[in-house]
């Protein structure tokens, strides 16, 4: 592994500027991105850009302040440090306010992850453009009912980041990612349906490009003629993409900060049965296959595999240094940040539901009738991880006797997250690593309320 002294040096320099009684943490980020969007056989936009930025956290007299800037210029860095220092005077003291210390490493050895691919760095822009144009053409050509391709594109990024604090904890990581997508518009005279296909990897060779037109077109075409169906209670089979989104909503319930602040629906349930016995949920950023894989968390501590639910029993919550100390435990290496502009919070990176042994077809055949949900809408507006209320728009197909039947749109499916965990009937074997902080897998929920006509 080649280290980049430069970013880490910037972070170290800041960390070493701590005054007596002060703790200073610096997070430095640099990215380089390419983004191609195509339409109608032409490049619609081609973006090549990089960002760099810094976030500085200061704790003094148990008070915390934070400041950030989108620049690594010396004078800006100094200004940011002063601003963080000033901001710290306005926070009220909190005895648990803390940054990572060597003791928080807790004997955990950082995972050896190879998240960087030199190959991606050397791909010429022309090849990236070609990928996007080919995807659009292949999507258009795949089925006569495809009347257009709403969007197709390719994007990649390389990112490196460094953290250093005045207690001597530091980390440097870098990674590459790339992805491509297409959105098909299908119409057979019954109205337009859309379908989405995408693939992601760490370099172009890892992209399953052929799956993109296939998924986009199949998903659009199989919805042709979709209609709302009468309201009923019905078993629901979630497509892997949808399971990933549901896990994303659920994830804040495992968040130690939400727990301490009385905003987790799982508060007080540690050691209790909260899910069907087959349910096992882990957050494992050390798994190199997950897109959220990271050897270090956003406070510079080594990440680890955290079991959240096993045998349907709630086993733990996720913590950063602050929430760990406050709950009388240690960080679980679960500090995350939304870029350099915000102080570290708590979050998942690689949440997954343990896959079962049977393929998705077996799940569908296990109930006389079910709704197979291929996409949901309104996740941010219709779900509430505090109350557990869950109500989303859904489209997909009815499944009868194990086979796809009529397509369905303009319905909602509703339950509560608490109920859904208990109602998980089976998880398929098709665990799929997807971009974002959760993996996808086909999952059967035994009953939900479907609202339609």
């Amino acid at each position, binding site marked *: 592994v080649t280290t980049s002294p430069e970013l880490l040096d910037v972070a170290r320099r800041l960390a070493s500027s701590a005054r007596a009684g002060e703790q200073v943490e610096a997070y430095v980020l640099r990215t380089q991105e390419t983004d191609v969007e195509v*339409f109608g056989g032409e*490049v619609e*936009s*081609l*973006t*090549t*850009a990089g*960002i*760099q930025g810094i976030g500085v956290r200061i704790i003094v007299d148990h008070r915390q302040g*934070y*400041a*950030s*800037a*989108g*620049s690594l210029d010396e004078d*800006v860095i100094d200004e*940011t440090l002063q*601003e*963080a220092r*000033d*901001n710290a005077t*306005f*926070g*009220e003291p*909190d005895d648990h306010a803390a940054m990572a210390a060597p003791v928080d490493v807790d004997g955990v050895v950082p995972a050896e992850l190879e998240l960087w691919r030199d190959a991606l760095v050397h791909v010429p822009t022309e090849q990236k453009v070609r990928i996007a144009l080919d995807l659009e053409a292949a999507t258009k050509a795949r089925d006569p009912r495809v*009347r*257009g391709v*709403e969007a197709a594109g390719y994007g990649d990024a390389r990112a490196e980041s460094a953290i250093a604090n005045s207690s001597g904890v530091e980390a440097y990581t870098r990674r590459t990612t790339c992805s491509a997508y297409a959105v098909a*518009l299908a119409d057979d005279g019954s*109205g337009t*349906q*859309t379908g989405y296909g995408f693939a992601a990897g760490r370099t172009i060779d890892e992209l399953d490009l052929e799956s993109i037109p296939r998924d986009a077109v199949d998903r659009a075409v199989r919805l042709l003629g979709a209609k709302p169906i009468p*309201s009923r209670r019905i078993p629901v089979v979630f497509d892997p993409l949808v399971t990933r989104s549901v896990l994303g909503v659920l994830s804040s319930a495992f968040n130690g900060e939400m727990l301490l*602040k*009385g*905003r987790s*629906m799982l508060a007080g349930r540690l050691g209790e049965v909260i899910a069907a016995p087959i349910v096992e949920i882990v957050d494992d950023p050390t798994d190199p296959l997950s897109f959220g894989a990271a050897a270090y968390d956003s406070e510079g501590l080594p990440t680890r595999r955290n079991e959240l639910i096993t045998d349907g029993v709630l086993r733990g919550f996720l913590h950063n240094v602050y929430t760990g100390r406050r709950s009388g435990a240690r960080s679980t290496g679960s500090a995350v940040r939304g870029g350099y*502009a915000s102080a570290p919070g708590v979050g998942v990176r690689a949440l997954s539901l343990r896959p079962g042994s049977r393929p998705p077809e077996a799940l569908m055949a296990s109930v006389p009738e079910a709704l197979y949900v291929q996409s949901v*809408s*309104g996740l*941010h*507006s*219709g779900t509430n991880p*505090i109350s*557990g*209320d869950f*109500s*989303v*728009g859904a489209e997909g197909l009815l499944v009868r006797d194990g086979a796809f039947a009529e397509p369905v749109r*303009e*319905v*909602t*499916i*509703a*339950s*509560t997250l608490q109920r859904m965990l208990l109602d998980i009937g089976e998880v398929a074997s098709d665990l799929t690593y997807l971009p974002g902080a959760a993996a996808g897998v086909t999952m059967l929920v035994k009953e939900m*309320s*479907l*609202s339609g*006509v």
Partner: protein
Amino acid sequence: MIETDILRSTLEHALRHGGDFAEVFVEDRRSTSARYDEGRAEELVSGRERGAGIRVVRGDTTGFAHTADLSESGLRAAAEAAAGASRDATAPRSISLTPASAPAPLDVVMPESVEKRRKVELLARADAAARAESDVVTSVTASYADAHRQIQVANSDGLLAEDDQVRTRMVVQCVATGDTGMQSAHEGPGRTLGFELFDTIDPEEVARIAARRAVKLLDAVPAPSGKLPVVLKRGAGGVLFHEACGHGLEADHIVKDASVFTGRVGEQVASPLVTLVDDGAYGREWGTLRIDDEGKPTQRNVLIENGVLTDYMWDLLRSRKQGRPSSANGRRQSYKHLPMVRMTNTFLLEGETDPDDIVRGVDYGIYCAQLGGGQVDPATGDFVFGVTEAYLIEKGEITRPVRAAQLIGNGPEVLKLVDVVGNDFETWTGMCGKNGQTVPVSSGQPTLLVREMTVGGTAA
């Protein structure tokens, strides 16, 4: 910000290998946010983002690059990256920039002129008010955010425009705990104002509204399931029109034939009671701008008049291609993003009916008092929006609160089912996400009745 000569030479540099159009967008944004949680000031955060985005258009292709280096050489490097796609040798093009009249100084209390302590104090007051509202309020998070954004736009058509924009917002979220579990609710007014926002908005009242909402939800019954009449209270229901047709009327979806409203100008697409405008110049709403992010002064655009589709919303590139003026709907999240067609303040104009009469006319249905956002697929028109405060209407009376649920419908169908429109009006503050970019918007409407929509509850 950047000197005119440097902008001009950057544009000339960007077009030195050809291209039809070039633009430099410069942004300097300072922000502060503060959060009060668990009864104490938790954190004050400040941010500074300064940079330029440069695009070069050639035919249908836009090349884009951005930089935080605003020196002449930094801008040149970004111009070259943006021009990457254009490689022909052409005669140098000379550009002359005509400055638009300088924007009037903002008559606001600039956020940076206000002591940070005062921002935190607001939150302390809100926190105390929320907790005093009820014993069952178990968690209060009050947050404050302000942003001062200076922008400068120059393009190869000779446009040179500047603006100074200020936004201030406060959000209070409360959790109430009872026998039925936890419920959360929030209230979050925001305006394009400075600190004087709090001359008209009382932080304590904001907190009490959020607290009452959360407390009421503890007694909520499961929302019904199926098709029901839906009354949308003035204000929040504007989200419905933002989703049901607003996105579908954005010209980028139209020119790609990826909207159900493509080719329908002049047609009756909604109930005759529906007049929909997008008005970026309106008051000091959350989506108000003097110029858009392509330098065009904002204006009131009538999209649907008495149910007839009159026009779409346009940005510079899409309108240029059609040989028509932009409607000043070109917006971008930051200099790091390309502009695209976005809404500003999207309003359904008021009608004539007393809002109380609207409720009285419903035998059994849902009264939506606050919505939590939504989502639409413009190509199919199918949209959802979540209700975060809603009640049953039984025999013309608003009765029991119902738990949060999603409502689903199809834009063109729902627009025709707007049966009654009230004579009241209010706006709502929100953030709108599209293709990975988030911009501040408002929506607004009077109290109105939609004959039926599918309510996604769990009650049998």
